[in-house]
């Protein structure tokens, strides 16, 4: 039975090419659209996550166990004695998922210029490494980002600068409790100002070279608070974080946190979005099911005589059911192929060129940031396969009703139909 059934099913489909093509077009295009949406949504999620993490946060952070969230300055990686920072960074970068890693030191302190003082968070970074990790350097509005050539240069948000009365080139004082209990203080020069549109950063963050902050804090070079990590593929964040924690813990205790733990509200957004998309996919499947039921029902009603004749010459009801289901499966399969063929070039285009949001959605300047008019897609093969499987299952389920009806034809009656 297996041998001839599919061939017969396939041929039956094409007895009425018009109808079959219409159905295929409907389902195929629908599938193509699902692919389109899945691709765009994956891109959207990626963009949302990246916009939340690529400024300063990074994809994963490595800390000493009791460091986060209070950030006491003595809780350095590797304990009170610190560690070989270079080796640590190298060990992390050795993981194939990691694109870049950068050491950081944090402190809370006071900044003062001509007008006022303000409480700020100080972040010490290695400029070359940090720029591979985050994109704050693309948000400079005045002056320059940190460089190795200016050890006493700092960058800060433009709002902070105006509050305290500083500009590029101004001298500012930083004040913070040092690791030995003394009051760390020193003079620095404003190298540049950034604008992110995020209040917390534009008003409260000061970036400076790592070594300078260590000096201010009276911390030896081996003591750092955090290693920020950027991955090639941000969707691997949780697995990479777990793996890294296991690996690094062999040297000294660490806690490795993926961005989902650092900004759970962002993770929530993304999940929310994802789930809504999936629910809408179900709706598509329902439509497809209706289409298939309709098509098959029409078909068997039309082919009453034919089916009656087949049953009269010996085809068993089970085989009739099998035939109808096989036809539905073939229809679904062909539609998927059509949809895929139509869809994939579009998917490629989305990934490479993006969707131009255009008009009033594109090139909008919000709080000084130009929002890109391009929406890039990202391939989400899991989603594509799930959609295809979903469709196949739907097709088979949808075909059951018409198939069972056909199986109950009585050959004598069927043959009499006009």
């Amino acid at each position, binding site marked *: 039975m297996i041998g001839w059934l599919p061939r017969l099913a396939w041929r039956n489909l094409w007895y009425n090419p018009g109808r079959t093509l219409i159905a295929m077009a409907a389902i195929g295009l629908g599938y193509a659209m699902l692919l389109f949406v899945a691709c765009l949504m994956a891109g959207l999620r990626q963009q949302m996550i990246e916009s939340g993490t690529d400024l300063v946060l990074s994809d994963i952070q490595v800390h000493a166990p009791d460091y986060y969230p209070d950030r006491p300055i*003595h809780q350095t990686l590797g304990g*009170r004695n610190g560690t070989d920072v270079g080796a640590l960074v190298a060990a992390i970068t050795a993981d194939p998922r990691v694109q870049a890693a950068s050491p950081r030191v944090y402190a809370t302190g*006071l900044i*003062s210029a001509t007008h*006022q*003082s*303000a*409480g700020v968070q100080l972040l010490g970074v290695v400029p070359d490494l940090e720029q591979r990790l985050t994109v704050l350097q693309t948000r400079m509005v005045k002056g320059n980002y940190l460089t190795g050539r200016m050890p006493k240069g700092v960058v800060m948000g433009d709002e902070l600068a105006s509050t305290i009365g500083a500009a590029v080139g101004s001298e500012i*004082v930083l*004040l913070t*409790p040092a*690791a*030995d*209990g*003394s*009051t760390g*203080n*020193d*003079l620095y020069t404003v190298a540049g100002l950034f604008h992110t549109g995020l209040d917390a950063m534009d008003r409260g963050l000061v970036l400076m070279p790592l070594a300078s902050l260590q000096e201010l804090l009276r911390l030896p070079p081996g003591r750092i608070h955090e290693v920020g990590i950027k991955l090639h593929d941000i969707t691997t964040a949780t697995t990479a974080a777990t793996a890294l924690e296991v690996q690094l813990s062999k040297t000294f205790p660490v806690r490795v946190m993926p961005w989902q733990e650092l900004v759970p509200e962002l993770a929530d957004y993304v999940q929310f979005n994802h789930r809504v998309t999936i629910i809408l996919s179900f709706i598509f499947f329902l439509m497809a099911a209706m289409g298939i039921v309709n098509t098959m029902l029409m078909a068997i009603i039309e082919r009453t005589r034919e089916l009656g004749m087949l049953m009269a010459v010996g085809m068993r009801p089970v085989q009739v059911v099998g035939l109808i289901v096989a036809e539905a499966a073939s229809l679904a399969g062909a539609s998927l192929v059509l949809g895929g063929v139509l869809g994939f070039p579009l998917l490629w285009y989305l990934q490479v060129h993006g969707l131009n949001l255009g008009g009033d959605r594109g090139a909008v300047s919000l709080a000084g940031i130009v929002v890109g008019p391009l929406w890039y897609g990202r391939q989400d093969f899991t989603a594509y396969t799930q959609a295809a499987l979903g469709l196949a299952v739907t097709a088979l389920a949808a075909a059951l009703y018409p198939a069972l009806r056909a199986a109950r034809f009585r050959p004598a009656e069927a043959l009499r139909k006009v």
Partner: protein
Amino acid sequence: MLATEGVRIIRAAFGRWQKAGVAICLVLTWLSLGQVAQAADDQQAREIVDRVARLFVSQSCVATMEMQITKADWQRTISMQLWSLGESNILVRIRQPQEDAGTAILKVDNKTWIYLPKANRTVEMPTSMMMTPWMGSHFTLNDLVNQRRLTDDYVIATTFEGQRDGVAVSEYTLTPKPAAAVVWGKITLEVRQADLMPVWQRYYDEDGKPVRELDFSDYKTVSTSSRFGRLVPTRLVMRPLGQTVEQTTITYENIAFDALISEETFSPRNLKQ
């Protein structure tokens, strides 16, 4: 005779306090926050506790002191000089250690400045920064802030009178009044009966767990405007209880009350020296 003198000193201190402003020296004002009570019961206890609270209170104060801080991660000894005048002027200059020498903190009314010798700059500190532990010690700068009339925050009862370690002492228990803006569940204070000098003070949270203890010792008579001088403990040790290592010790090398201090001393311009 000592007793009558003691009473005269109390009366004099009281009177002076009721008249004009009160100069508050750095450390013990924190202690004296809300210590004064006008409770219904135990009038004598109230007077004694009140007296203890006012040990470091005066029109003006000049002191040289050393603060030794022991913490889990570091240890420091800071040597500094302090001037205070009236209710709202306080100046502290750090003399030792070397890296902090010359640092000065000035508070006038509601503004605070810090002079940083290394950067050679005077920076105004927002009020919030003043409320962090002073130089990392176990004392906070609360006192610099809360220096209006001392509020009647506690109800005082005498809980022990007798001998401990061969010394006649009295122990008082201070319980906060319902609306008092204090964090402690209760405070206990041991005072020597002979000279009314405090021996120790313990702070408890609301569950009755002792949180920290302040120990007094090295009692000396220091100069005041009257010819009698004043007996004060010159060594104070604050220990968080439950921590074996951490503590802060303040030792007064010199302290003089009611000396003449010019207002000029408390000018931000004069911070740099």
